[in-house]
């Protein structure tokens, strides 16, 4: 097995601060400038390392969709649960009048 070595930070990829902030935003994780800055070399290192997959010849290979062959089952089209509103809401940070409550969405 070839030793898998991390590439030097930033060499293979060019993820910059702006990209990290974009990814954080897509991930719905707020980050400070300092946190985002610290992530630039970390993410570059990891992504630079996984880049090596590009060298594998995958001509004619279908992407894997199921690790163990299995049939997609269909169940009877009947109600199998429900009427458990209190249980569903039991762990909600904020539940009111039988609903999940969130900050105002419409201005």
């Amino acid at each position, binding site marked *: *097995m070839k030793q898998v070595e991390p590439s030097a930070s930033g060499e293979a990829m060019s993820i910059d601060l702006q990209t990290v902030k974009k990814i954080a935003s897509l991930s719905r994780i*707020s980050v400070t400038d300092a946190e985002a800055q610290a992530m630039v070399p970390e993410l570059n290192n990891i992504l630079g390392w*996984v880049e*090596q997959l590009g060298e594998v010849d*995958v001509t004619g290979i279908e992407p894997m969709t199921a*690790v163990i062959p299995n049939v997609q089952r269909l169940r009877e089209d009947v109600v199998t649960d429900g009427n458990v509103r209190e249980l569903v809401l039991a762990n909600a*940070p904020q539940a009111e009048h039988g609903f999940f409550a969130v900050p105002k969405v419409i201005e």
Partner: protein
Amino acid sequence: MTNLTDLTVAEIRDGFRAGDFSAREVAEGFNANVAAAKALNAFIVETPDKALEAADAADRAKAAGETPGALAGVPIGMKDLFCTKGVQTTAASHMLEGFVPTYESTVSGKLWAAGAGMLGKLNLDQFAMGSSNETSYFGNVISPWKRGGGDNAALAPGGSSGGSSSAISARLCPAATGTDTGGSIRQPAAFTGISGIKPTYGRCSRWGIVAFASSLDQAGPMARTVRDNAILLEVMSGFDPKDSTSLDLPVPQWEANLSSDLKGKTVGIPKEYRPDGLNAEISAMWDRGIEWLKDAGANVVEVSLPHTQYALPTYYIIAPAEASSNLARYDGVRYGQRDLPDGAGLQDMYAATRAAGFGPEVKRRIMIGTYVLSAGFYDAYYTQAQKVRALIARDFELAFEKCDLLLTPTAPSSSFALGEKQADPLAMYLNDVFTVPASLAGLPAMAVPGGLDAAGLPIGLQVIGKALDEQTVLNASLAIEERSGFTARPDKWW
């Protein structure tokens, strides 16, 4: 009198049935060990009353002449990734701190139905992401093992099932559940001198297990002996209509069919698992394992798994991609933490909640996953990784045309000191180099102890089998267990 907490699962089960001791005596013994082992930080929540409740029920049923369940009288530890009704389930995260499921995971439910009792919820790497149990919001788990020569460094119990491995090797429980996405049962088992098996993907229902990477996650048992693993795996396995990837197959009688006679079996030794620079003691242990399997009657052949070197980078695309999708559910709305800054809108609440609720490694993986799935990069990363994954699975298929099982090391080293590898996420990821390929291919794989290294720490061997052939995996592991004579245990310091 025998120390009940030194007994194996089989010995507890059989002794309870024979009336040598009561289930309550066993539960009290383990409860006492758990209570006295705070220094290991193996449990997030201790549930001594649950253990006693199950024990008393087993004792009453026995007195009434009822047929005992498969695990009647046996208390176990439950990895805190399994939802347990009425008992906090956190995945070792701040995000789920205080989350009390209103339902029971299928696997834990099967164990309780078989008569097992719960000693507590075991610590782990946060959302099962880690190889050293250093990412838990509830603090590091400490291995009961120490290096020889007076070195007092706190060692890693492995991860992510580090609470399980630490607790079993310290005799806080005779067995525990684990989950394995890329090695999270096998590597901690190897680090602590115990056994653990990841069954074929789909054997154990994923329903009610906090999801990390759904195409890889599998539950499995961890215990001190191969037989104990067979006993637990039989109870944990089985079809579950609530998991769309659950295999609708009967559960074999793995325990009854245990046999360490390997005549007629061919063991493949994958040459790619012996890279230049492989730790000499790990390499020597592997050679000893080969001799043990020959001694048990097996033929040994060299095989090739040519895409092995690409398994880890493939895993570190696929697992984060699935994690970024699975962990999207933690939004501060339906369960778990909510962080609502003054005047924040819904989107701000999501971002603030997730910033506060997730630890650094979880954020790192969510962001990697988000990136590789994002528009313009999806094909280059994710589709390519799924193609390479197909090639890795094909490598195994071709190898299994020449052999019945594979023998490899479990981890590239014995346990390391806490803090030693934390600075570099990539160095930590390399711990899973020998365990990840079988995960990507969905194959059953077991870690079994082989011996101690020069520092006095356990090192293990890994047996990988064909899909659905857990029996051969267990049998070969039993052959190793019988020949290694591994009886070492950590000296009590906690």
